[in-house]
């Protein structure tokens, strides 16, 4: 599946998505102010996403010092993007990737296998309600570092949803852009 994910050197297609505060945010709008760290997160219920977002929120002052902004995309809808935003502070922007549109373009969306799906249902996680669609898909953990011209400078992807890059690696990649 990794071969389908947008590679380093490719242009990340421009998009506009709703954020957790009732606004519409475009990638190119953000790129005008500097590089963008763009991550796909599974949602409020995922403990690994939570840890990664906490680490990123902590690294946020240093990310901002490098002129970069952080967009955290989640397929969750309704009150959930705002819940994620509140939990991780206002310095990163939670965007709602409604119906996986941007995730599909980036190649990071997969269909939840039946066994895992049964486990999620047993845990009381109704993805239909959370996503507002019945596709039962999720994004793989992925972080893209995008330069102001829209190009993907670095890509961190791991099919294993427990594995995220270290914030230091992201900061190093940002430092490498200067």
């Amino acid at each position: 599946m990794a071969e389908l994910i947008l590679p380093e050197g490719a242009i990340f297609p421009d998009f506009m998505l709703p954020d957790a505060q009732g606004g519409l945010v475009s990638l190119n709008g953000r790129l005008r102010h500097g590089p963008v760290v763009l991550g796909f997160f599974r949602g409020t219920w995922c403990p690994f996403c939570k840890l990664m977002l906490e680490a990123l929120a902590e690294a946020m002052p240093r990310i901002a010092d490098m002129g970069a902004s952080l967009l955290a995309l989640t397929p969750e809808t309704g009150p959930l993007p705002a819940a994620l935003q509140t939990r991780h502070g206002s310095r990163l922007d939670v965007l709602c990737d409604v119906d996986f549109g941007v995730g599909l373009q980036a190649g990071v969306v997969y269909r939840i296998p039946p066994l895992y799906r049964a486990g999620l249902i047993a845990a009381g996680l109704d993805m239909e309600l959370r996503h507002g669609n019945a596709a039962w898909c999720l994004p793989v953990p992925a972080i893209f570092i995008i330069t102001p011209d829209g190009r993907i400078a670095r890509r961190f992807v791991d099919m294993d949803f427990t594995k995220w890059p270290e914030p230091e690696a992201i900061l190093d990649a940002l430092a490498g852009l200067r």
Partner: protein
Amino acid sequence: MELTQVRYFLALCETLNFSRAAEACNVTQPAFSRAIQKLEEELGGALIFRERTLTRLTALGQEMRPHFETMVEAAQAAQALARAHQNPAPRSLRIGLGPGIPATPITGAVAEILRVLSGTEIHFSEAPCGTLVDAMLADALDCALLPADAPLPERLNRWPVFTDTPRLICPETHPLARKNQCGLEDLAGETLLLSDECGNFGEALARLAEPPLRTQRLRAGLGQMQELVRAGLGVALLSDRAAISPSLAARDFVEPDLTRQILLTAVAGRPLHQAAMGFIRLCRANAFA
């Protein structure tokens, strides 16, 4: 999975013919077949029965088709909105509001559309649910806010956006205005004004009330209803999201709980213009706290 693969699969759904679908997608047939095969591998099953004379969707193919259509639509919407933001053009956004559903909760989303897609004309239509549903099906409306208990055809997508709780509206000088909150038992001896155009909170309560409530049926919108309450004709139950005139008292109505769920609805698979796509997405991403 990835956009190109999914697009190929949807082209195949249309044509049920590998070579014609490949041609429509501007790729060679071997490349097209490989992409479909990859998608099948990822989904863990065949999407298409490949028989000599007959190509048709498997159960998995049929199941995935509408989901893929939704996802491709979302990808296109995200791109189209970004483009539209840079190219102002005359657009309109036509929103239906079911009986008694105020526009207050969605004004933020409307304002954001106007900011991002300047020049958009906004049309609100207040009408009974059936009229709004027909208007959506006839493409005279882009979307509508309707109560969850309204009968909706299968073809409508629906997303819960907020809940709507009634408040009791009475003149400032009315004895009930002195209470912090009220319930059915406080309405003994009062006249409850009912209007189809103000949501069915009053009707729902009247059905539950024993002994029966004194009611007066009217045809009046939210504004006229407030005038009638001010004139002393009776009290009314109106959405807590409706703007209430400062000369009237609005008290939480807590017993019984008459909260209703409000859905955002739109015709499934209907191509929408950017203002409507953006508006629906903003509403779906919103907490409406």
